[in-house]
């Protein structure tokens, strides 16, 4: 088991390196010289040289790459073009609001969607199942923006249930600001997730071992929640982990509409300002989170599926 984890961990090193290389090529070689974007067309030659020197753009490319690797390793991405703040500090400050929105949103979504998925798979073909599937398709079909506008206009502005937007960094004041975006995230994600988990579970119910379990005399409940559930854990876990990095992306829209100063807002602002070092740092961060998520799934597979260990 320990050997397996160590092996998987070592295997991520080349992947991480490759991702870093791609990000570097995209930003430092393909993307053009960001100093002009930053300083505008009327900057003097001396200003340009100063900025190029500060950000290391005057160095040869391999040296720049090593600097980038060092940035990743030390989590020190330099300063933002726009705000002149240290980027690592921006990320740390943005992480708080983002996580206080996304962690509860993600937990609620996952618990609800796995639970509902199990329930409708158990009652497959009955009216409850059909009803839920229709609702899911409807929920998936409406874009997030529609929910945001509806929520802000009716729930917040007309009925005053929630603040329209804003944020408070102290507890428990921030809760009221988080509630509506969280609700919208849950509603938007539920449609897809419920359908995915339902399908993953139903796929298992057609397997031969299910018939064996029934022939043994087990009740439908035992067959389903013991035999089927443990087998469907692999696709369920995969989906959960793959969604973690997307959480940050999903939060882009929500954070900027609801004025939550999280990582999503930071990234959108950075894109609007062509804030090159911040975009690069965020890209790196999301990619690395994704790879670490995959690593976590690989390790969890061992727990749920005994066949993985030998491979």
């Amino acid at each position: 088991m320990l050997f397996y984890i160590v092996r998987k961990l070592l295997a991520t090193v080349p992947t991480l390196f490759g991702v870093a290389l791609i990000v570097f090529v995209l930003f430092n070689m393909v993307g053009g010289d960001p100093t002009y974007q930053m300083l505008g067309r009327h900057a003097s030659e001396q200003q340009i040289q100063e900025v190029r020197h500060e950000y290391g753009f005057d160095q040869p490319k391999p040296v720049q790459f090593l600097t980038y690797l060092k940035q990743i390793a030390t989590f020190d991405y330099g300063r933002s073009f726009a705000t002149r703040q240290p980027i690592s500090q921006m990320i740390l400050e943005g992480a708080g609001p983002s996580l206080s929105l996304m962690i509860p949103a993600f937990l609620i979504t996952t618990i609800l969607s796995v639970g509902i998925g199990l329930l409708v798979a158990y009652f497959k073909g009955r009216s409850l199942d059909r009803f839920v599937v229709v609702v899911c398709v409807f929920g998936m079909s409406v874009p997030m923006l529609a929910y945001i506008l509806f929520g802000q206009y009716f729930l917040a502005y007309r009925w005053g249930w929630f603040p329209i937007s804003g944020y408070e960094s102290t507890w428990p004041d921030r809760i009221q600001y988080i509630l509506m975006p969280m609700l919208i995230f849950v509603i938007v994600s539920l449609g897809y997730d419920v359908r995915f988990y339902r399908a993953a579970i139903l796929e298992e119910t057609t397997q031969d071992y299910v018939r064996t379990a029934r022939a043994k005399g087990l009740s439908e409940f035992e067959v389903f929640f013991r035999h089927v559930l443990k087998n469907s854990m692999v696709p369920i876990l995969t989906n959960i982990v793959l969604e973690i990095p997307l959480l940050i992306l999903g939060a882009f829209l929500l954070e900027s509409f609801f004025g939550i100063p999280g990582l999503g807002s930071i990234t959108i602002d950075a894109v609007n300002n062509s804030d090159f070092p911040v975009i690069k740092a965020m890209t790196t961060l999301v990619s690395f989170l994704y790879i670490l998520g995959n690593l976590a799934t690989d390790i969890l597979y061992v727990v749920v599926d005994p066949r993985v260990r030998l491979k």
Partner: protein
Amino acid sequence: MVEKVLEVKSLRTVFSTEGGELRAVDDVSFSVSAGKTLGIVGESGCGKSVTSLSIMRLIPRPSGSIESGQILYRGQDLLGLSSEEMRRIRGNEISMIFQEPMTSLNPVFTIGYQVSEAIVLHQRLTLRDARSRAIEMFELVGIPSPAKRVDEYPHQLSGGMRQRVMIAMALACHPKVLIADEPTTALDVTVQAQILDLLRDLQQKVGMALILITHDLGVVAEVADDVVVMYAGRVVEQGSVKEIFKNPKMPYTRGLLRSSPTLTLDSGGRLRRGRLETIPGIVPSLLSLPKGCRFQDRCSSVLEACRGNEPELRLISSDSDSRHLIRCVRDI
């Protein structure tokens, strides 16, 4: 008179499909006594497996259902039981082995656990006691070093070993009836013989009735006491093994017998190869059965009368312990 443990009477199992309702099992009757073996033979798609799943009441719903008939287990009609009562029969009084040992075990539980599960369920033992029972069962079915194997997962075992696990699971609660649905089809020839010997040995030891479903007449000749030949959901010939192999009447049965490979040595000790024959064509779709005898389009001795009304199953000879029935208009 030996007790008839299981008696199937006029069983009719239907499936509703997009093309209409099809009768996968149509008016099938047979019985099996304690310690005896009944072979059910026929090509794929003749309704053998559906018959066995009907006995277990494991027909996939809602598409399939048992329309009529009786399945009497020691005189009690299983079709009248609640699902709760039926669960107490399954795996306990009547057990089943399936034809796919590779996929019939749950990949994420140890084989010991899967066998123990049935024991805990029906015998109310603790998991620990059930585990030692499982080890005994593995010993009984010839799994080497069972105490070590008990904690292994199905993927660590060969097909033959997995089928032994299935047998151990099926026999763990000493059932009165064992249904083996093509238990050896997916296995190597040498392993097939081992599994059949094992089934026969165990049957003698515990005195249960065995229903052996197969398309291999060689297996039937070796193991069974009585035979039911099925074709397109119908019983077409039925009787004792001795009678049917000596004196097959229905052209379909004869065709099946001729299409079994035989290896014999002639007087000089050389291998004699019998010519292997086939029955032309395939089993007709249950949705478009011909009028009259269902075998008419493939029958080599078809008559005009075969295309009229479907022949009834009729008695052609009987002795003290078996009755020979055929569904054929010809007087052979």
